[in-house]
């Protein structure tokens, strides 16, 4: 301990130490010179001054650190001497480590991160599951449901009575609270309108989550009952943005969809609700739902008593000591009994949903459902990349060891200790790994940033902030360092085992047992690299083809030069006729904008992932199965077919004749006509919406098929109906406008905003984009995959080529004299090239054979991500194989060419 202290002090006063040592030496020499009578004699006898100073210094630093310093210096010098080698090794490691860290950090953020609430591990999400097919007790459902792989259905939404039952009668939860998504609401603060996401919350929501307010108070039980004064809790970001974090905001009134609400308090900055991708800005008591939603639902009154209307989600907090399993057991019976009592007959009771509890610590799992599978695929890919990178490091180290065996022999013969040489080589491999890791941090940070952009896909309220995960980084770095150590050690030990004499002479006979084995190892590494590269190349090919196929899908209308945006006047208080008139006025104003060719509107954007379906009644066609008698629907404005350029094949488009009070008319697409009126002209025929509604709609036109909801799905039967006439069946709410422009559509964005503001400043314009961007956004995941995979595959190929090149270059070096003899005996240069290339091709063939088997076995897991091709698409596989063979030849040609240029005289004299 004391010694350490003295050493530390020495370190601090290093320079004084040097000075003192110098002075001491001068003193010694002076005395000696006096004794000898001459300075020269003294100097001569004194010997190597530097050495003894160095030795004195080494006493303090310890020989170990002194040598570590030396090793590092030498290692750095060696790294700069072999720039290509260093760059290759460091870059492949950096990319391997960086890509892994980025993807795994996302994985962590999506899969594992806990909600910023008190004791998130106690939270439980209450879901239900139903078997495949219809669930007749669910008559009405708003919220979400997911298809399970077995065809069953999962949903988190319940009828309000079920929520009350489970909230009030259970012994496993300390609290149960409910919530429901309120959608985007029109928020009017100080006369300024904006759209904000909202969430309905029960009185126990904030208390149940254990959230403390940032200001004021949060919604409590007293706020969530009929007749209470309407209050809201606003999100911290809204408070900051619109009120400058002023306490004066509390008690202020804001209008939500036209209804006044008092601001009671502000939620803390880190809180974003329970569903990670979204971040509600206002939290509204569940019982005030009617104030906000009156326009859309005429059922507000019955919502809280209807046992067949599934809409509220719930979470429970486990009592201490209660396990998820026990809670599941305790509640499922209770729920089964209740839900069975809502069935009206045996058939309905046979397929009721069953309660299914899930851990809720990381929030509602919509995000996980959306991204987990793509992330697993990406994770597999980056893991493979890391494997290739490590194999590459190993290979490069092995090849370099061969090149340096002479250097090692020289060092050993000059008396370097074997351990010392091993340590030095190890230092070099570690230096490589560490610089790779350091650069990897940079790659990881860039990767995380670009992945966030990719996943957010243009959404500005994307709250999934993945941060660099240091544990993951540490892990990947450890893998890299371990590779450096293992292969560095292997190479170091083998290098120092060389039989010095032959190595110095560099004869053919120098291939000792160790060398042959090393040769085999590097071949093995190259073969596996080629196999893995093929796997990645094939995956990339599949995703690129998928993207190509999606791009070449004929949408059935002209997607170019269309400005698309959303206006919701219903939330600003417009209803029925006033609402229709508002949209009609807007449409007329838009048409008058200079630069607009035509304008139309639809109640949903085309090919944007959203759809609206309804049942149909066709006279003479009976429903064999409820599923088959449905159609998709678009409410359209004037000039829809002209603006979108959807050709009318028969009859006429919807036009000015189709007013509110006129005969209800519709244009149908070809799929609809073929399905419901096979073999006959649909024009003049009648059908009805829904199962029980009258057959009052006349088909006046047949439109060519156009994509409706997505590029991938088959085109469904579609009915186009005027927004003026649709009100009888479906209440009108928001409207999307499509403006076909002469120039760049987005250049008109501000004009459009101004026009809407002029008509009514309380109605905001939202989601301004273009039709082609909207379509592109639906295939963002495919594009991300195609881009990432192409990058990964290119990376893998490059690394495999480097590995192959290193192996062959080494083989050629090793065989220099053999090749020299061959050439001296008359071998043609061409034959020499072929000899080397043949070896390359054999390696490639083995790698490809293994890789091909792997591809054949694994691509089926990608099935659900592909479009328009089979997982084992022959074209893609053939392309991947040819690219790999081409790369192998390319990588092998340089060494082969070099081999053929060997001068026999030089090669033979080399011995």
């Amino acid at each position: 301990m004391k010694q350490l202290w003295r050493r530390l002090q020495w370190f601090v006063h290093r320079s004084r130490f040097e000075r003192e040592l110098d002075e001491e030496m001068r003193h010694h020499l002076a005395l000696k010179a006096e004794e000898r009578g001459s300075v020269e004699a003294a100097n001569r006898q004194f010997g190597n001054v530097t050495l003894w100073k160095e030795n004195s210094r080494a006493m303090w630093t310890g020989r170990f650190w002194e040598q570590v310093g030396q090793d590092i210096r030498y290692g750095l010098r060696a790294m700069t001497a072999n720039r290509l080698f260093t760059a290759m090794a460091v870059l492949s490691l950096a990319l391997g480590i960086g890509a892994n860290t980025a993807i795994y950090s996302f994985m962590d953020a999506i899969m594992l991160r806990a909600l910023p609430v008190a004791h998130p591990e106690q939270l439980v999400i209450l879901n239900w599951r139903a078997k495949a097919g219809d669930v007749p007790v669910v008559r009405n459902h708003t919220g979400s449901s997911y298809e399970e792989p077995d065809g069953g259905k999962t949903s988190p939404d319940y009828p309000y009575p079920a929520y009350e039952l489970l909230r009030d009668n259970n012994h496993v939860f300390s609290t149960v609270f409910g919530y429901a998504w309120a959608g985007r609401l029109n928020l009017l603060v100080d006369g300024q309108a904006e759209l904000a996401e909202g969430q309905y919350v029960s009185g126990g929501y904030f208390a149940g989550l254990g959230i403390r307010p940032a200001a004021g108070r949060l919604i409590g039980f007293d706020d969530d009952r009929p007749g209470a004064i309407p209050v809201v809790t606003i999100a911290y970001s809204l408070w900051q943005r619109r009120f400058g974090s002023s306490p004066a905001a509390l008690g202020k009134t804001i209008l939500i969809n036209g209804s006044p609400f008092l601001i009671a308090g502000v939620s803390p900055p880190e809180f974003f609700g329970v569903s990670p991708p979204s971040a509600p800005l206002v939290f509204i008591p569940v019982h005030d739902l009617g104030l906000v939603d009156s326009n859309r639902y005429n059922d507000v009154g019955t919502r809280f008593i209807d046992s067949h209307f599934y809409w509220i989600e719930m979470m429970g907090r486990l009592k201490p000591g209660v396990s998820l399993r026990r809670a599941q057991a305790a509640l499922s019976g209770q729920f089964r009994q209740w839900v069975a009592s809502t069935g009206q007959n045996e058939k309905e009771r046979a397929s009721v949903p069953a309660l299914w509890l899930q851990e809720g610590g990381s929030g509602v799992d919509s995000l996980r459902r959306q991204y987990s599978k793509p992330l697993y695929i990406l994770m597999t890919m980056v893991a493979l990349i890391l494997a290739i990178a490590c194999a590459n490091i190993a290979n490069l180290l092995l090849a370099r060891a061969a090149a340096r065996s002479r250097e090692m022999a020289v060092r050993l013969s000059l008396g370097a200790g074997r351990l010392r040489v091993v340590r030095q080589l190890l230092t070099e491999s570690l230096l490589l790994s560490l610089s790779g890791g350091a650069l990897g941090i940079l790659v990881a940070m860039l990767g995380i940033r670009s992945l966030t952009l990719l996943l957010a896909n243009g959404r500005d309220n994307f709250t999934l902030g993945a941060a660099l995960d240091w544990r993951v980084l540490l892990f990947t770095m450890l893998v890299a360092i371990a590779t450096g150590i293992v292969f560095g050690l292997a190479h170091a030990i083998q290098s120092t085992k060389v039989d010095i004499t032959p190595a110095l002479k560099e004869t053919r006979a120098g291939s000792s047992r160790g060398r042959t084995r090393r040769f085999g190892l590097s071949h093995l590494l190259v073969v596996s690299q080629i196999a893995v590269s093929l796997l990645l190349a094939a995956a990339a090919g599949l995703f690129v083809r998928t993207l190509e196929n999606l791009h070449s899908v004929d949408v059935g209308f002209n997607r170019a030069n269309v400005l698309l945006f959303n206006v919701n006047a219903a939330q600003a208080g417009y209803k029925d006729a006033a609402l229709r008139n508002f949209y009609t006025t807007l449409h007329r104003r838009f048409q008058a904008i200079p630069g607009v060719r035509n304008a139309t509107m639809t109640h949903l954007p085309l090919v944007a992932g959203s759809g609206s379906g309804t049942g149909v009644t066709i006279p003479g066609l009976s429903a064999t199965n409820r599923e088959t008698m449905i159609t998709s629907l678009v409410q359209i404005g004037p000039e829809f077919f002209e603006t979108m350029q959807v050709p009318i094949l028969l009859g006429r488009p919807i036009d000015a004749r189709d007013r509110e009070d006129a005969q209800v008319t519709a244009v149908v697409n070809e799929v609809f006509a073929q399905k419901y009126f096979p073999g006959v002209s649909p024009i003049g025929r009648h059908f009805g919406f829904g199962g029980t509604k009258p057959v009052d709609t006349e088909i006046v036109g047949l439109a060519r098929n156009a994509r409706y909801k997505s590029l991938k799905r088959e085109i469904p039967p579609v009915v186009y109906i005027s927004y003026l006439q649709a009100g009888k069946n479906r209440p009108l709410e928001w409207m999307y406008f499509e403006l076909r422009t002469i120039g760049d559509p987005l250049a008109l964005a501000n004009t459009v905003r101004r026009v809407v503001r002029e008509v009514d400043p309380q109605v905001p314009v939202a989601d301004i984009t273009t039709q082609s961007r909207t379509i592109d956004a639906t295939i963002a995941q495919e594009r991300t995959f195609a881009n990432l995979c192409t990058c990964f595959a290119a990376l893998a190929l490059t690394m495999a080529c480097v590995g192959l090149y290193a192996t062959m270059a080494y083989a050629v070096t090793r065989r220099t004299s053999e090749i020299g003899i061959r050439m001296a005996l008359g071998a043609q240069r061409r034959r020499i090239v072929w000899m080397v290339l043949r070896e390359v091709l054999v390696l490639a063939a083995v790698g490809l054979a293994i890789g091909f088997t792997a591809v054949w076995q694994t691509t089926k897991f990608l099935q659900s991500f592909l479009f328009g091709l089979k997982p084992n698409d022959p074209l893609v596989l053939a392309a991947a194989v040819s690219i790999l063979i081409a790369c192998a030849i390319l990588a092998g040609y340089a060494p082969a060419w070099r081999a053929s240029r060997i001068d026999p005289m030089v090669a033979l004299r080399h011995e």
Partner: protein
Amino acid sequence: MEARSEIPPGTLYMLILKTLARLGSMHGYGIAQHIQQTSDDVLQVEEGSLYPALQRMLIKGWVLAEWRQSENNRRARYYALTPSGRKQLIRELREFERVMAAIGRVIQPA
């Protein structure tokens, strides 16, 4: 060159410690001189090992160093024993005697 013997390995510390015990405090040159003279020029201390050894002893805490004016008015670094250096000397002497006695028994004519 006169014939000089190398200092037996491991005994340099002991010689330095003993010299300092005898002289009180001394600079490096003086220590080397003293060892040479008292051994009748048989033992010659190499500067290359003397100074590293002194540094080592500083780390171990057996000696202390201090700059002083020497008798002929030069600034010199003087080394002096510490209590722990004194203990070390006793240890080394005992060990040395033990080894010498053992060697003596081996080479004694039978």
